[in-house]
């Protein structure tokens, strides 16, 4: 049992054209910038990307969009401090958008990971985001039926990881990452440090290794927000 991968390139080597890819993070917090850039180097096309946002500036998911790799975004908030990459393509009709309320997005991903094909939520009832979806009444209140979300791959940023794939996260960089680990057929994780099995207290494991397929160490990960503020662009 050794899920560690020697390089970023090796870690993303199976992600091909047409794949559905969940990408962790909320804005820059928990965004796996190094894995995303390795994926851009690899260059698969026609991807469906699931993330809370839709990229910022000229790095990360925005750089994927700039590179023409993304056919469709599934997200709750395709805006950021510099949303040009997505906005330009969206207004030109060159990228599809499935807009999902943030809590519904989180729950759909969890449902995908938990083997729950559909669930009911009050969120979006009576709004345009519920159009076409089945409505049911429970105990006198109306709810929208939402379906699970799954992916071929998840690209995740964590803090510590071991060869079993057990993970911890840094502060609010947890966000969507543990859920996406559960919902992808193959989960690829960059961690700040690979530790020995047993070094993470079993009580403190946030993502158990069963949800993880590959772990690669990026010891000084870059923070999207800092790169944006420094005006960095993906070369």
């Amino acid at each position, binding site marked *: 049992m050794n899920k560690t991968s020697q390089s970023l390139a090796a870690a993303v080597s199976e992600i091909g054209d047409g794949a559905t890819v969940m990408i962790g993070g*909320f*804005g*820059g*917090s*928990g965004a796996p910038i190094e894995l995303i850039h390795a994926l851009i180097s690899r260059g698969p096309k026609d991807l469906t990307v699931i993330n*809370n946002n839709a990229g910022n500036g000229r790095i990360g998911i925005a750089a994927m969009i700039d590179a023409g790799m993304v056919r469709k975004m599934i997200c*709750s*908030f*395709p*805006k*950021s*401090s510099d*949303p040009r990459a*997505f*906005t330009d393509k*969206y*207004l030109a009709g060159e990228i599809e*958008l499935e*807009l*999902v*309320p*943030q*809590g*519904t*997005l*989180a*729950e759909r*991903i*969890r449902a995908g990971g938990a083997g729950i094909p559909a669930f009911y*939520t*009050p*969120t*979006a*009832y*009576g*709004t*345009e*985001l519920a159009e076409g979806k089945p409505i049911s009444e429970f105990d006198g209140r109306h709810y929208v039926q939402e379906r699970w979300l799954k992916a071929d791959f998840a690209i995740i940023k964590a803090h510590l990881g071991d060869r079993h794939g057990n993970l911890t*996260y*840094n*502060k*609010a*960089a*947890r*966000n*969507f*990452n*543990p*859920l996406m680990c559960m919902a992808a057929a193959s989960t690829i994780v960059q961690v700040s440090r690979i530790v020995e099995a047993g070094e993470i207290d079993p009580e403190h494991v*946030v993502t158990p290794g069963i949800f993880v397929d590959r772990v690669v160490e990026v010891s000084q990960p870059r*923070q*999207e*927000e*800092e790169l944006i503020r420094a005006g960095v662009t993906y070369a």
Partner: protein
Amino acid sequence: MTSIAQEEIKLTNAQIAWRAAQDIVDGAYVNLGIGFPEMVARYQPPGREAIFHTENGILDFGEAPKPGEEDWDLINAGKKAVTLKPGASFFHHADSFAMVRGGHLDVAILGALQVAQSGDLANWRVGSKGVPAVGGAMDLVHGAKQVFVITEHVTKNGEPKLVEKCTFPLTGVACVTRVYTSHAVIDIVERRFVLREKLAALSVEELQSMTGAPLHIEGSVADLIVPEV
């Protein structure tokens, strides 16, 4: 008459936020929407401890750190850097929205484009142009025990924001419980606007003329008194 009242007699945003803050009880779990609602945190009455929740997975965060001391893994839903208070906790997005949807928050405070007398809220999109973005607003309006709106009473063009029926795309149906405006405090009770407080300098008739649906009065209407803040 109305235009003079609007321009000269009204609360500032800070004052609206202050007034809303007075209704947050000690120990309440509160989510403040991105932007204007975040201002409410500044005006917590002394001696009361509210616990602030942010959708991206923190309970009990505090003020912004000093410039240069930001940790960009420690942000709120508006992607602003925050700090932690003793007793804080981290959790993932599904647990975070379990708190929201499951009715565990006491209060959510949001901005509005329009609020209807039925409690319908429109606050995420003006029309069908541009890039739509919804975030957590549609989740927040369901689940919190009380959903407060803070808003100007009318738009910059003088049009009512409190209306019979929203014309902008809805965020949620029958979800708002109370509205704090630049001119009044209004509850939504059984699909009606019930006036609770108004600026003393304004008559009920003047306020009604700025409001797009009937204002009902049950018992007395208090003066809306807010300090300079």
